C-alpha cells in the first residue's frame, strides 16, 4: 500500500488539527491524560478537604456537613470514573494499543476524536455542579436513591441532575472509545501479531474495554431512570415515602433495583480499572527485571477468567442491603473464586522477579510497590467478600481502607509507573530521576501510613461517611488522634503529587534526551522509526512481528532483549511457537 500518499491525505497540517481537533491516537491519548490528571488533582484537593474535617473537626468552619458530603461524593466519582477509567482506557489505551499491535492508528480516528471531546464535555458538566445553586450532589458516589434525589441531601436541587447527565455523557464517550479499542485489537494488528503474542498491557486494556462496553449500559439505564424519577416524578426506584414530614407522590418503586443495576456496573468497573493495571505492571516488571514474564499464557487466561467472573460477583456489595439473604451464599462463593486467578497473577509477578536482573528504575519501584499494596488490598477483599465476615465490617472504615488500597492506591501506582516508563516515548525525554524517587517514596510509604490504620478503625466499628464522631462512647480518644495523624499523612502525600506535576511539565523541555528505546524493551512501541512517533507511527512499512513481547535474556542471544520485529533468526520465540504467522490464536 502506498503509505506516503495516505500520509499526505491524512497528516494534519495546522496547529489546530494537529493538537486540538486531532484524530491521531497519540495526541488524543495525551489530551485524555492531561484532562484526567487535572480532574484527578481536583479529586485530591477534595480528599484533603475531607481529611481537614476528619482530622481536625470543628477547626475549619467552612467545611459544614453539607460541603463534607459533597466533597465525599465528588472525590469518589472523580477518582473512579473521570480519573482512573478515563486515564487507563482513554490515556494508556489510546497511546499503547496501536503502537503495541503495530497499527498506524485506531481504526476509527474520527470517532476517537469525538470520544475525547465528549469526555471533556462530561468533565465540564461535572465540574459545573460546583457553581450551581445548592452545589454538587452529596449523595455519596454510589448515588443510592431515594436519598440522592430527596431534600435532606445536599445538591438535591441541581447537583444530582448534573451528576447524572455528566455520567450519561461520559458513557457515550467511553462507548465510542471502547468500540474503537476493541475493533483495533481485533482487526488492525500487524502481520505476525497473533493475539497470544500481544503484550499483557494490551490484553488488560482489551478485556477492560469489553467489560466497560458490557457494564456501562447498566449504569446508563439506571442513571436515566433516576433522572426521570427526579425530574418527571416517575417511580422506578421510589416507593411511597414520607420525606421530612411530607408525603411524596412516589409509589411502588424499588431502591434495591438501583443497587443491583449500579453494582452490575460497579463491580466490573473495579476490574475496568484493575485489568489495565495488571497488564501494564506485568510489562513493567518484565522489562525492568530483564526477564520474560512468567506464565504468559496463564496470565492471559487469568485476565479472561477475572473478566468473566467479574460480572457475577456484584451483589457482594449488597450483603446487608436487604436483598434476599440467600443470594449471599452464591455471591460470597463467586467472589472468593475470583481470588484464585487474581492470586495467580500475583504469584507470576513475583516469580518473574525471581532470578531476574532487577533494575531499580522509577517505573520498577512503582511496580514493586504495586505488588505490595495490591496484596494487602486483595487480601482484605477476602474479609469483605466472605459474607459473615462482611456483616460487622460493611460500611466501616475497613471498607474505606480496602478499596483505597486495592482500586485507589494500587492502580494509581501503576499509572505513575506507566507514565515514568512511557513518557520518554511520548516526549522523547526522560522524567527527572531525583524528583521521581522523592515522588515514589513519599507516595508509597505515605499511602500505607494513611490506609493501614483505617483497617483497625473499621474493625473497631467506626462507620464511614461520617462528618463527625463526637460523643460516641465506643470510639476512644486515641481514634480521634489517629484520624489527625492520618490527615497529616494525606497532606504530605498530596503535596508530593505536585512534584510529579512539576516533573511532567519541566521534563518536556529540560529532561535528558531519551533515544528511541531507553529501557531496552522488546515490545513494538519502542521500535518506531522516530521518537516521539510521528503520524502513522511506522513510516513506509508497518513492522512484521516474529515473536512475543517478552524475549528477555534469551540464552545465546547477543543482547538481553530481542525486539518483537527483529528478524526471525534472532530467536526468542514464545514458549509455544505458532505454526502460522498472523493467525488469530
Amino acid at each position, binding site marked *: 500500500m502506498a503509505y506516503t500518499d495516505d500520509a499526505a491525505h491524512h497528516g494534519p497540517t495546522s496547529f489546530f488539527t494537529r493538537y486540538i481537533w486531532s484524530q491521531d491516537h497519540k495526541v488524543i491519548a495525551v489530551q485524555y491524560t492531561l484532562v484526567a490528571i487535572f480532574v484527578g488533582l481536583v479529586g485530591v484537593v477534595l480528599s484533603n478537604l475531607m481529611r481537614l474535617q476528619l482530622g481536625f473537626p470543628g477547626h475549619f468552619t467552612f467545611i*459544614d456537613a453539607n460541603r463534607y458530603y459533597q466533597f465525599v461524593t465528588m472525590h469518589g466519582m472523580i477518582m473512579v470514573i473521570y480519573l482512573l477509567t478515563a486515564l487507563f482506557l482513554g490515556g494508556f489505551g489510546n497511546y499503547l494499543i496501536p503502537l503495541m499491535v503495530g497499527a498506524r492508528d485506531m481504526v476509527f480516528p474520527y470517532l476517537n476524536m469525538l470520544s475525547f471531546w465528549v469526555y471533556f464535555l462530561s468533565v465540564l458538566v461535572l465540574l459545573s455542579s460546583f457553581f450551581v445553586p445548592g452545589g454538587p450532589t452529596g449523595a455519596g458516589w454510589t448515588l443510592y436513591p431515594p436519598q440522592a434525589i430527596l431534600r435532606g*441531601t445536599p445538591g438535591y436541587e441541581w447537583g444530582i441532575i448534573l451528576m447524572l447527565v455528566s455520567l450519561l455523557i461520559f458513557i457515550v464517550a467511553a462507548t465510542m472509545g471502547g468500540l474503537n479499542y476493541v475493533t483495533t485489537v481485533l482487526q488492525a494488528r500487524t502481520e505476525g501479531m497473533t493475539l497470544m503474542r500481544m503484550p499483557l498491557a494490551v490484553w488488560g486494556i482489551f478485556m477492560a474495554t469489553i467489560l466497560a462496553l458490557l457494564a456501562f449500559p447498566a449504569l446508563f439505564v439506571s442513571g436515566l431512570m433516576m433522572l426521570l424519577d427526579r425530574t418527571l416524578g416517575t417511580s422506578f426506584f421510589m416507593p411511597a*415515602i414520607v420525606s421530612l414530614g411530607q408525603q411524596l407522590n412516589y409509589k411502588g418503586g424499588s431502591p434495591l433495583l438501583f443497587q443491583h443495576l449500579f453494582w452490575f456496573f460497579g463491580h466490573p468497573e473495579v476490574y475496568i480499572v484493575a485489568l489495565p493495571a495488571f497488564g501494564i505492571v506485568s510489562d513493567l516488571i518484565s522489562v525492568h527485571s530483564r526477564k520474560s514474564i512468567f506464565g504468559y499464557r496463564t496470565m492471559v487466561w487469568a485476565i479472561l477468567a477475572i473478566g468473566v467472573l467479574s460480572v457475577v460477583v456484584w451483589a457482594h456489595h449488597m450483603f446487608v442491603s436487604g436483598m434476599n439473604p440467600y443470594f449471599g451464599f452464591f455471591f460470597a462463593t463467586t467472589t472468593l473464586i475470583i481470588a484464585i486467578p487474581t492470586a495467580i497473577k500475583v504469584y507470576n509477578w*513475583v516469580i518473574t522477579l525471581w532470578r531476574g536482573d*532487577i533494575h531499580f528504575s522509577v517505573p520498577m519501584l512503582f511496580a514493586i510497590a504495586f505488588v505490595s499494596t495490591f*496484596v494487602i488490598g486483595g487480601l482484605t477483599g477476602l474479609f469483605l467478600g466472605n459474607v459473615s465476615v462482611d456483616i460487622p465490617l460493611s460500611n466501616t472504615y475497613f471498607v474505606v481502607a480496602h478499596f483505597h488500597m486495592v482500586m485507589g492506591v494500587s492502580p494509581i501506582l501503576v499509572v505513575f509507573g506507566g507514565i515514568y516508563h512511557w513518557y520518554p516515548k511520548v516526549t522523547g525525554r526522560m522524567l527527572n530521576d531525583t524528583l521521581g524517587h522523592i515522588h515514589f517514596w513519599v507516595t508509597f510509604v505515605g499511602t500505607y501510613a494513611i490506609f493501614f490504620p483505617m483497617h483497625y478503625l473499621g474493625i473497631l466499628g467506626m462507620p464511614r461517611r461520617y462528618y463527625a464522631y463526637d460523643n460516641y462512647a465506643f470510639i*476512644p480518644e486515641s481514634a480521634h488522634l489517629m484520624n489527625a495523624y492520618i490527615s497529616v499523612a494525606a497532606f504530605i502525600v498530596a503535596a508530593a503529587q505536585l512534584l510529579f506535576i512539576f516533573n511532567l511539565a519541566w521534563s518536556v523541555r529540560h529532561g535528558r534526551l531519551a533515544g528511541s528505546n531507553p529501557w531496552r524493551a522488546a515490545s513494538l512501541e519502542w521500535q518506531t522509526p522516530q521518537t516521539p512517533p510521528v503520524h502513522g507511527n511506522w513510516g513506509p512499512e508497518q513492522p512484521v512481528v516474529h515473536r512475543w513481547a517478552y524475549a528477555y535474556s534469551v540464552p545465546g542471544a547477543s543482547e538481553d532483549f530481542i525486539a518483537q520485529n527483529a528478524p526471525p533468526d534472532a530467536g526468542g520465540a514464545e514458549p509455544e511457537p505458532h505454526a502460522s504467522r498472523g493467525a488469530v490464536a
Partner: protein
Amino acid sequence: MAIAIALVIIVVASVLFHFVSPWWATPLASNWKQMDDTLTITLVITGVFFVIINLFVAYIVWRYRHREGARAHYQPENSKLELWLIGGTTLGVIALLAPGLFVYAEYVRPPGDAMVLEVVGQQWQWGFRFPGQGGQLGTSDARFVTAANPLGVNPDDPRGQDDIIIAGNEVHLPLNRPVKVLLRSKDVLHDFYVPPFRARMNMVPGMVTSFWFTPTKAGTYEILCAQLCGVGHYNMRGKVVVEDAAAFDAWLRRQPTFALTMLKTPAPPATAGVSGAPAGADTLVEQGRALAQSKGCVGCHSIDGTVGVGPSWKGLYGSTGTFADGSSAKVDDAYLKTEITDPQARLVKGFGPLMPKMPLSEEEVSALVAYIRANGAGGAATQVGAASGAAAK
C-alpha cells in the same frame, strides 16, 4: 535495595501495629461469637500470606538486584509449579469460605421462638414497635404516617391496635432472648448498626428487611446509622438498653399501645400531662412535640442539650443567639418564627445552611415555637414528652 528494606519495615511495622493497636472490635454483646471467630481465621490466613509475599519480594529484589555483567535467568513457564500454586490457593480459599458460609447459614435462619422487634428509621431518628398481647404486628405503610401515627401503622388493622409504640430513640431488650429485628424506613436507606452486636441490616423504604441476634450482655449500647442517609447521617443516634427480663417487662408495660397513641392527640389537655406535668400542660406544646417528631426536627435539634446538626432546644429560649455574621439577638417568639419559616436568612454561628424550608401553617409554627419555649423554660416539656414516650433523655 532501599525498596527491599522498605518492604521489610512495612511487614514489621504492620505486625507490631496489630499487636499494640488499641483499636479492635468492641467487646461482643451478642451471640455472634462465630462472626468474630471467622474474622480471626481470615485475619490469620491472610496475615500469614501478607507477611510471606512481602518478605519474599523483599528477599528477591535484594538477592537479584542488578549487578554489572549479570543476566536474568530464562524461564518463561513452569506448568507444574503453576498447577501447585493454583491448587494451594484453592485450598486456602475453601478454608476461608467454608466457615464463613456455615455461620451465614445460621444468620439467615432466625430461631422460631425469637421475639419480634420492629425498627423504623427516618431522617435522622429511630422509632420502634413491639407486637402487643396478640403477638402479631399490625400492617403498616408510609401512606398511614401522620403526626399522631409516626410509624405508619394501619389504623384499620385490628392486629395493630395493641402494638407497643416507642416513638423515641431508646429501646429496651431482654437479656438472652433471641430477637428477630424487622426493619423499615419511611424515607431513605438507613442501617441499624450496634457495633457490639455485630449483626446488622439495611433499612429500605418500601420493604421490610430483617436479621436476628441474641443480646448476651446487659448494658446500654449506641445505635448508629451505617448507610449514608443525608446530611444528618452522622448524627442519627439511638440507644439500646439490654436488661433482665423483669426490668424489660416493667419498661414495656410503661409504653403506650398504638390504640392509646391514636387516642391521645385529639384528647383534651388533661391526658397529655399524665405523669405529673404541671396541670393544664398546653395542647400547643404537645402539638409542637408531635410536630417536632413527625417533621423530623428532632433529627437535628435535641432537647437534652446535645449539639447536633442544629442547636439543641434545651435552654435555647431566652438565651442570646449569635449569627454567622457576628451579630446577635435574644431568642424569643419572633426570632424562632423567622428561623423556622426562613432558615437560610440568618445562619446561627457554628451551624451550616442545612435546614430545609418546611411548608408549615401559621398554627404549626406557633406550636413548634411553644414547644421550644417550653424546653427553654426549665425543661417542663421534657416531662410532657416523657409521658408520651418521646425522646426525652
